[in-house]
């Protein structure tokens, strides 16, 4: 991690109104925190484990603004009550102009836990899948 990369990270945080950014690589761990306060939904402390008693919880693979709909499409990926298969795209996290996919961890019926267009933190539970 050099100065230019740190500067890129700070630019990205400013452009995205991010309060905290934590980056981990094999030999590097960087945590950047902006001065101003910004509401962030913190992850729950005790996350249900996958396939716990016939259900699986899909958590956020990173931070960003969550949505179940791609902006250029009308239909949503992860609708309430939808039957999904393991690996299906359920939603997306937007960081600035980038989109990261949120994928189903099991096959079953989908139950949404978070509204669209909410800024969420890493590991926030997003969906519960009732395994059938």
């Amino acid at each position, binding site marked *: 991690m050099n100065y230019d*990369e740190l500067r*890129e*990270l700070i*630019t*990205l945080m400013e*452009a995205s109104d991010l309060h905290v950014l934590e*980056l981990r*690589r094999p030999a590097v761990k960087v945590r950047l925190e902006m001065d101003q306060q910004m509401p962030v939904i913190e992850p729950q402390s005790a996350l249900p484990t996958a396939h716990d008693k016939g259900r699986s919880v899909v958590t956020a693979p990173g931070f960003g603004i969550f949505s179940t709909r*791609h*902006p*250029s*499409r009308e239909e949503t990926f992860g609708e309430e009550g939808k039957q999904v298969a393991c*690996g*299906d*795209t359920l939603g*997306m996290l*937007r*960081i*600035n*102009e*980038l*989109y*990261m*996919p949120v*994928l189903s961890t099991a096959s079953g019926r989908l139950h949404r836990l978070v509204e669209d267009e909410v800024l969420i933190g890493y590991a926030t539970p997003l969906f519960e899948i009732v395994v059938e």
Partner: protein
Amino acid sequence: MIEILATGALSTVQDLGRTGSLRFGVGTSGAMDDLALAIGNILLGNEPNAAAIEVPILPFKIRFLEATDFALTGADCGARLDTQEIPPWWCLHADKGQILTLGVPKSDARAYLTLAGGLDVAEVLGSRSTQMRGNFGGFEGRPLKKNDILRTIARAPGLTPHSAISASGFGVRPPAFGLPLRAASQNGTTTTAVRVLPAGEYESYTEGALEHFWHACWKVTPQSDRYGYRLEGPVLEAKTVIEKRSHGIVPGVIQVPQSGQPIIQLRDAQPSGGYPKIGTVIEADIWRLGQTRIGESIRFLKVSYEEAVAALEEKQRYLMQLRQAVQLQRKANS
């Protein structure tokens, strides 16, 4: 390396264009949506001018003959890698033997398939774009056909030793959201807008014609392609008959033939013409035309030269910020 399994007419290899040869009578060619091509290359960490496939008519299907990263930008075609659905404006890794299928888009006009390293076709006059008038450049100087096999440029050893894309890939927000530009339509909705500089014969048109030019919704007619868009709307009348000798023109020039119905010259336009020029679509907005479909309408917004330059700078800044963000994402995966 990929094999074309199915393609409509006029899928071609394009890069950002063959600039600098207009004086030899060679048009620019290049991607109709240069922004989609640029973003595809950014997603893959390619050279900015790497060549890709422009797909205007779908469906389109290829087989990957070796493992590679690829990106799909431009029109959302409900693409699938085998059975896996691919979101729009997305990059992904394909294994050898996998099949990529692009369906009919619900909106927008052209999709771009970019491959890691860029397509390996010969550079002619500094570009890999297909020159349709001269039948050179691109892949054998022609649109792609079933059974064509295209290779990619090998990366330097150690540059990208393995895929920098996670199994599920990642994407970008379509530029229509990052660089929005719409104008009021006649039916109360909004329509695609492009910014225009008045051109050489602008002052030769009647006040009524200029009023129409800036305020009408211009319909893109079926006589529209990579050469140019013929528009339909109110007749634009000149104060007197304008007769010009043929002179140099560039993509974006809006000519008005005797019918009074304007033509926007585009990427495959010939480099000279004699019709009077009422305006020029600014360079920063030509990509918006590239994604406007036949039957849709566009509006012209008047700008100054300074505003046109500022728009180009805004577009370059947008791409630079996107490149920085993608580089971070690729580093995290590599």
